[in-house]
């Protein structure tokens, strides 16, 4: 930390400053925006998003900012709220292992709403997302691990502050007002992990995106909050973490980027399941054709208590059911958004093969081994590794294009190619160019 400046103020200054953003960081931000927007559009027909939209409009809104899912125009706070929730429906976003955060679904919708409101250049949107996400991730890394073990959802608590930074940058806040945007975002930090597996998790992400926009807008007109909102004696750090590392939050700010370590989740479910699903799919690739899997045994150190919950009621609980995710992966060879479509939960439950958890030692939660019992075959084993954790793909990567197209084609049809082109290579376009394209269809 430099001089007497606290972490809150230093992060705020970084948020509105002119620090050089490396190309690889901008590439990650571009990928996050593209991925986020594609899955927001994919929620176009989702009834929960439509209900949310209707509820918010009834409380007062104008029509200046787009909602990707419903096609309605709203005020920027509500637009960010709706888009943030819509993006979280598919649960197919980004993840940062050290911060335990999915930062894109909160920071991107906030930046996009203000970016459209101010008609900013797409390049400025990318910078705002890069800086906002970086601040959110740094706060998250500084508050973890106890932040999460106590029950806070860092994606929303820290994400809301990052959303305020991203929105504030696009509003051209000066350092003093950006510090107030951070303050108003930090004091509204909310969202708990107990919401996992329910619609509430989706809605609290939308809420975090909306409060980020609101915080920046209020700061822009002069509303004040605490200067030391993060590091203060009664601030975000002290109240939500046992050992907040404030110095680490600002160390090498602008020199090293946590955002570079952000990954895109390969499977559309809880990030905690990604490694074991990858192992299950490796086993599946070795199975003889027509093989019937009888049971799956997962060996690991202490499992989080909610992993033993097997009741699958809907798409939200399915994403947090290890049994459901493994069953889907072994059956379909994929755990993507299609495996969680609502029609899969209309009939009888899917309960084969059985999935059993075997704690093998005390210690931090972690997975070690997968044993798959197949009728007529020896037990197949697979070591669980973290090799799915790779930097988010460059916008030019082929896999990213197909991922985006799978989201938008069902909604936008023939316009999809043009939108994906724009998202992956925005050039000197402006944010409103995206919406003009989307509105042609929706």
């Amino acid at each position, binding site marked *: 930390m430099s001089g007497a400046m606290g972490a809150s103020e230093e992060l705020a200054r970084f948020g509105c400053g002119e620090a050089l953003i490396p190309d690889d960081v901008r590439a990650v931000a571009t990928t996050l925006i593209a991925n986020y927007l594609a899955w927001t559009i994919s929620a176009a027909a989702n009834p*929960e998003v439509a*209900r*949310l939209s*209707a*509820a*918010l*409009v*009834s*409380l*007062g*809104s*104008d*029509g*200046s900012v787009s909602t990707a899912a419903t096609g309605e125009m709203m*005020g*920027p*706070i509500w637009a960010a709220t709706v888009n943030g929730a819509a993006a979280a429906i598919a649960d197919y976003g980004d993840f940062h292992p050290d911060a335990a955060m999915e930062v894109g679904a909160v920071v991107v919708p906030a930046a996009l709403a203000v970016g459209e409101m101010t008609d900013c250049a797409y390049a400025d949107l990318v910078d705002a997302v890069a800086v906002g996400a970086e601040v959110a991730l740094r706060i998250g890394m500084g508050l973890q691990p106890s932040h999460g073990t*106590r*029950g*806070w959802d860092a994606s929303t608590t820290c994400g809301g502050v990052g959303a305020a930074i991203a929105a504030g940058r696009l509003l051209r806040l000066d350092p003093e007002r950006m510090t107030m945007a951070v*303050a*108003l975002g*930090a*004091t*509204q*930090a*909310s*969202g*708990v*992990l*107990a*919401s996992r*597996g*329910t*619609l*509430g998790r989706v*809605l*609290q992400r939308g*809420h975090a995106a909306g409060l980020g926009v*609101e915080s920046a*807008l*209020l700061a822009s*007109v*002069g*509303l*004040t*909050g*605490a200067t*030391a*909102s993060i590091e*203060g*004696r*009664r*601030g*975000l750090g*002290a*109240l*939500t973490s046992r050992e907040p590392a404030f110095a680490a939050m600002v160390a090498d700010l602008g020199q090293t980027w946590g955002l570079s370590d952000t990954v895109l989740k390969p499977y559309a479910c809880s990030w905690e399941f990604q490694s074991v699903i990858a192992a299950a799919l490796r086993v599946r690739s070795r199975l003889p054709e027509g093989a019937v899997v009888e049971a799956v045994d997962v060996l690991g150190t202490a499992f989080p*208590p909610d992993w033993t919950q097997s009741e699958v009621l809907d798409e939200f609980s399915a994403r947090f059911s290890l049994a459901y995710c493994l069953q889907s992966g072994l059956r379909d060879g994929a755990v993507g958004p299609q495996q969680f479509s609502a029609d899969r939960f209309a009939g009888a439950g899917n309960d084969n093969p059985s999935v059993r958890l075997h704690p093998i030692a005390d210690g931090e939660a972690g997975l070690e081994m997968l044993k798959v019992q197949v009728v007529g075959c020896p037990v197949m084993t697979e070591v669980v590794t973290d090799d799915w954790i790779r930097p988010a793909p460059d916008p030019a990567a082929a896999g990213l294009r197909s991922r985006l197209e799978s989201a938008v084609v069902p909604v936008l049809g023939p316009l999809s190619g043009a939108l994906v082109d724009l998202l992956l290579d925005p050039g000197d376009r402006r944010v409103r160019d995206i919406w003009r394209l989307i509105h042609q269809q929706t």
Partner: protein
Amino acid sequence: MSDVLGADSVGVLARLADDLGRVRRLDLPESVEHEALRALLNIVGPAVASSSATSVEQVLTLQQGLGRAVIVPGRSQRYGLYLAAIGTGMAAHLDDFDDTHLESGNMHVGSVALAATLGIADVHGVSGRQFLIAFALTCETLIRLGLALAPSHHGEGWQPSSTCGPIAAAAGVGLLLGLDTAQMTSALALGSTRMLGQREALGTAAKSFHAGKAAANGLVSATMAARGLSASASVFEGAQGVGAVLSQGVQPTPLLEGFGREWHLLSNTYKAYPCGVVAHPGIDIALFLSPSVGDLSRVTAITYECHPLVKELMDRPEPSSGLEARFSAQHVVSAALARGELTLAELSDEMVQSPPVQQLRSLVRLDPNGGFDREEAALTVHMDDGHRLYHRLRGPRGSVTRPLTDEELKQKTARLAEPILRRGGEEIAAAVFGLPQAASVGALLVALTPKPLTASR
């Protein structure tokens, strides 16, 4: 975390929703109805008085289309429900002249309850009695939530009115929307995940924003629930639930036991002075000693013996603004001693910069005494001739032991609201106390809207 909270097969929020549904069908006991009316009368004064404060104006500039336009007490213009809730709650709490429920963690219930329920009562055309029941149950739920989280919640640094506010506000709005038990459970769950309010914000505009935003978050939660949206019904309990993240000792008994039979609202108190309540005993003493002090330049030291919370919450020897001065024990005692009263004028930015008050403030030394209770203080004024003025007091004006009378509440409201509304205090009080018989809240809304200026001939 209490075992009870995690083990019950019926969740805490579902039980609360069931209780709310049961109690709303009953008439409020006479004493509770009267206290609810007192709480309402007390809060409309501060709400009106600060309705055009700078920070409230700043929030209301976010106006983005009206939707269902409703009033913000003290203002002529109407606003969308969401923004009106923020503006109303913020104004009501801004001067710290509202109310306090001590046991639940210095809870200020009136601002959140008024902001949550007034607009929706207007939109849905409910009767005065229905509005009053929703207002009373919002207050009661808020107090009980605070008791369930106490004492560690407030002590750690949270502002209970706004952390618990969204849940209680969701309850009040849900009652006015006629939510069934399942919908109400969803509303409470959605409100639970929209908490806010860190005490770091004391002395800034964000503190009052907390109150308004808590009400607005509850409004959003209940509105979403009415549209069929939900959240985990068990989000409040469990090892990683809302209760656990907000308190080290959360327990459901104070929240649920005797709901509808025993009313904590009856021990709510109404502030006699516009500042942090823990300094009110010191202010009372300063006002008592003021006539005896005479020449302020002869004061050499002021020893303020107080409950430890005064130092914890209000040790600000050099406040820079009126907002900060509301949480400066040094300022409020000095201003009361110097001026012989402690009104909004003594907490203005100008008064904070006044040289005589600054000089007196610099002489105040806080002396926390663990043996004092919260309503106790002693003040010693040391004069330059060695003479000392001393007074000790337990139970200041506006406390549980010395509550403001109905007449004092009417005077407080009139003083605060008359200049802005251009209406007599009697009209405002009549609109409030007439609610149990009123077919709608219309008369109250009129009474809280400024009377148009008539052109002089």
